[in-house]
């Protein structure tokens, strides 16, 4: 081989780097698919009281952990070896942040499965079952939109997730109200009520993670984060407050 060809050209380095970015995006989408699959799976486990399926879901969390660590390490490698700038840098940082949001969402569905084990044998009121089912569908829908916006780099779609999350929040409130009603009618005891409320909270938190993913996608595309508005306000206030504090 020619000695010159032992070192890749700059163009080859860029091509390889962009292939690596594509692979990173594909793996993040796969991680998201694993998480979104767990939402209807966990809901079914909860509503059918299927103990063996609950155990499978809990065990399957290890696979999610393995892939999230892999993605995270590849992000670090890309940051260290390629020293990316601008949009490329934001794409890697976004993948890194998404990994933790997704991994946490997977953990929440594990919590749902564990919650089912604590509730095992309880005849859940049909109204609560219906609301659990709707919260599950809504949480999954939010995750789908969040991942679509990431895969397509669509900032407008990502911006819509925050508003869409209001529906899940409303369902969550209805659900908590229904738990109170069931408890008042003595169809569930306090312990079961608390356990069911926690399960509702897990779905609501998945919605929040989807909103976070949306915000990170907006950052990836535009370089802007909602926190930047608050930071700008704080910066605007700073000289004035410093002036009052230090009259000299």
């Amino acid at each position, binding site marked *: 081989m020619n000695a010159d060809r032992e070192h890749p050209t700059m163009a080859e380095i860029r091509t390889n780097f962009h292939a690596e970015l594509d692979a990173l995006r594909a793996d993040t989408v*796969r991680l998201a*698919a694993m998480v*979104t*699959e767990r939402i*209807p799976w966990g809901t*079914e486990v909860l*509503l059918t009281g299927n103990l063996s399926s609950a155990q499978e879901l809990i065990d399957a969390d290890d696979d999610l952990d393995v892939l999230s660590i892999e993605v995270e390490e590849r992000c670090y490698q890309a940051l260290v070896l390629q020293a990316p700038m601008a949009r490329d840098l934001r794409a890697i940082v976004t993948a890194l942040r998404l990994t933790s949001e997704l991994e946490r969402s997977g953990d929440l569905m594990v919590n749902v499965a564990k919650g089912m084990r604590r509730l095992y044998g309880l005849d859940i009121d049909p109204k609560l079952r219906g609301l659990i*089912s709707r919260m599950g569908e809504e949480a999954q829908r939010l995750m789908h939109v969040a*991942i679509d916006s990431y895969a397509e780099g669509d900032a407008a779609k990502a911006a819509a997730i925050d508003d869409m999350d209001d529906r899940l929040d409303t369902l969550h409130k209805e659900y908590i109200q229904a738990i109170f009603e069931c408890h008042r009618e003595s169809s569930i005891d306090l312990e079961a009520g608390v356990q069911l409320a926690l399960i509702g909270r897990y779905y609501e938190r998945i919605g929040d993670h989807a909103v976070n993913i949306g915000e990170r996608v907006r950052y990836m595309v535009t370089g802007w984060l909602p926190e930047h508005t608050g930071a700008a306000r704080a910066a605007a206030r700073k000289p004035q407050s410093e002036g009052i504090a230090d009259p000299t």
Partner: protein
Amino acid sequence: MIRRSIDVRRRLDTLRARLEREGEGTAPSTSVDDAAERLARAFDAHEARQDAAGAVAERLVAALDVIPQGIVLADAAGRVVFRNRVADAFAGARHSEALVEPVITELIGRAVAGEAETRVLDLYGPPRRSIQLRAVPLDDPDVPRPANGDAAPPAGAFLVVEDVSERQRLEAVRRDFVANISHELKTPVGALGLLAETLAGEDDPEVVHRLAARMQREAFRVSDTIDDLLQLSQIEAGSLPPRDPVPVHLVVTDAVDRTRSAAELRSVRLVVVEPPEDLSVLGDRRQLVSAVANLCDNAVKYSDPGADVTVSARTDGKTVEIDVSDNGIGIPSTDLGRVFERFYRVDRARSRDTGGTGLGLAIVRHVVHNHEGEVSVSSREGEGSTFTLSLPAA
């Protein structure tokens, strides 16, 4: 191909001209001419064979692209050399289908190492699907078997991806039907036997009276089941019903009248949104009344006392839709696709309390199919259900 053949001939002409120049003064060699001509003909034949093979390959690829299964071919190193359209769709998929591609890669890797494997991937979706992946090593007939008798290393791998959801659903229907029919018939018959045995050794008139009442209830239950089975079999086996215009308001009125006593017993109010009198469907009035009455009966059974069951109808000119809605306990989403199966019970314990044979919705489905219509259900637990019959308008 033609251009390449012309190229060869041109080169041969150049070669002949050079040979002629070198041997100027002597007669041109006919053997060189013959050799050149033979070579050109052989080349043309080879090109024609290659083109024919290319056309066959193109047709094969086109055929593989229209089959519902995904096909993936890999070489000995595990590199994918071909995937048809279905398999290709998994490569850039999102959401649940994105989970298929890593399994394709894993199974291809195993197959090129000589290990055949079949795996079923259950995807929650929605829609819920079962995807079967089958990978096998490919032998190369040209590679001789090693002298020690071991298998030759695979020349590549072949993988088939297939959606087996419908096959699995039909298998579950068949399996559950056999189990359910024996349960529905054996339980009351077994109870009758035991009650009769107890009755034979009983002298207390009060106990005898109670046992006889139980026997009567069990006998009615078997009788109801057999009646429904006969009705179902008549609908299934019978020829297409007469295609007479049947006024929808008469169908609804008859069906509601048939259910009224059961509704009053459970303090459920039957609300009819009166359809226009000129609204008609094509079919058999008796069968249609039976279908709507079955839906009303079901709605009443699964409604709380004081609740409403609403029957309404509408049309878009081509189709008439009859809705039966309730605010009852609803149907879990996992059972929604199966409620029209014979003897399928969402909640076996509750069904026993509410009575019924487990055949009502199967009868509805068959009646509607006989009328070239469709039946659908939308439901949410704790909120209620709406069954919709779509029938051709008269």
